[in-house]
């Protein structure tokens, strides 16, 4: 069970998160914060219309949170908001133990082991929630 949670791909993303660091060209951003364990990520996106042209994140948290956010950033690049939200729905359902067709998840499927750890689900979805709210939070230019 533990080995399902801490798979190598997860440990790898956790330790060396992809797309990590500030994104200078970001047009949208939002923070995800889990009060209980202190995980905090800020997701920054450069949108091209309805499409994610580029995405990076900063923050700190547990392996699951960092890995999930890292894998998410790799996954969504180049995809449209619609596609992303569909996948998030599937992902959310899968990690909370609901019925889900794993097909569209690709690499993300590695995170599904978290469903056996109810108090870790938030770690796996934090980055996604931040992304969702980033879509609604354009960075206002300073005048």
């Amino acid at each position, binding site marked *: *069970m*533990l080995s399902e*949670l*801490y798979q*190598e791909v997860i*440990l*790898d993303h956790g*330790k060396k998160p992809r797309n990590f660091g500030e994104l200078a060209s970001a047009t949208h951003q939002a923070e995800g914060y889990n009060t*209980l*364990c*202190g*995980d905090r990520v800020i997701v920054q996106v450069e949108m091209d219309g309805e499409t994610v042209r580029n995405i990076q994140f900063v923050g*700190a*948290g*547990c*392996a*699951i*949170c960092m890995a999930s956010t890292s894998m998410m950033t790799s996954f969504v690049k180049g995809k449209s908001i619609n596609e992303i939200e569909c996948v998030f729905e599937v992902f959310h359902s899968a990690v909370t133990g609901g019925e889900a067709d794993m097909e569209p998840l690709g690499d993300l499927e590695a995170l599904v082991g978290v469903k056996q*750890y109810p*108090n*870790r689900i938030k*770690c796996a979805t934090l980055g996604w929630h931040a992304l969702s709210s980033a879509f609604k939070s354009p960075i206002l230019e300073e005048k």
Partner: protein
Amino acid sequence: MGSKIDVRAEFPILNQSINGKPLVYLDSAASTQRPNTVLAAMDRFSKTSNANVHRGVHTLSQRATDEFEAARVTVQKFVGADDPAEIIWTKGCTESLNLVAASWGGANLQSGDEILLTNMEHHANIVPWQLIAEKAGAVVRPIPISDDCVVDLQAFRKMVNNRTKVVGIKHVCNATGVVNPVCEMAEIAKSVGAIVVADGAQALAHVPVNVKEFGVDFYAMSSHKVYGPMGVGALYGRRELLEAMPPFMGGGDMIRSVSFGKTTFNEIPNKFEPGTPNVSGVIGFAAALDWYQSVGKEEIWAYENELAQALRNALDQMPGVRTIGKCENQAPVVSFVMDDAHPHDVGTILDSHGVAIRTGHHCCMPLMERLGIPGTSRASFAVYNTNQEINVLIEALKNVVDIFSKC
């Protein structure tokens, strides 16, 4: 191990498996478990004497009132107060501290006054002061601490002045086990006429407590941290101060008379105890203190401190592990960080071994910020822990290291 105490049979909850492994409960600083004696005392009350207190002329109510007031005397004696009326029942340490901040603070704090709190305080002894300080225009300032989580007495001495009205001291630190020099700090506070509000949440179960000797004005407690039930606690307050304070909440039993024109308040402790109290909780709290004293406080402390020290020694041997906080006669709380593993992951892996610890900021965010860490993993001890459990914990930590060294 020199000492040997075996009370595990009195704690049925400990006798269970978690994830296929025997439960190793090392989260007593969050909440201790309760021995059968305490559960039985509450059950007996519920099945023989349950009634509302103070207000009834009938036998059950009188019985309930007698037990309720006897419990107050138990707490009074336990903390060395002069007078049972100086013990106010609350729902826990958090309410006790809020009562002091809102009532004493509300009546006494003025614009420009200073409230000094150690940088290691629990949120329960920070936020209530921030709330009242904002209303009063007072300022809340942290008392510096060292990297070992020890109060800098010299800096504290320099900070106090005639604007200092309140000094807040966590007697024993829940995040590190560090014991604060409450006597010395109280003396320094008194030298400028400030009141001293001590947070005794973690102290009752692990170190000697005597409010008169300490010279503190208020002392806050939670039953569930000392083998008693949740939902009940107490506040010791010096009579003179309590008498002068306005009520915290209003309701039944705390008034002398109520009319729409004018309401006059009752004497202490009733003034601060409106509404139906948690009678069975109070009885459980007193039963817990009695049980704890009957096992032997000194014996318990010696035993659990040996356990904690054994764990600290073992952790010091592990590469990539660092313990947090250090002082003489440290309480049996062992906090640590690991180079490669986040506390949250440590907690999950330990749980899969049946080991229950707490991870995170332990409601001490300013302390974590001061120490430059996001949180810690914390193993905290009580009388029912064993040497064998330390071995299980260490083995589990080796598993953590294994997992995170994979890549």
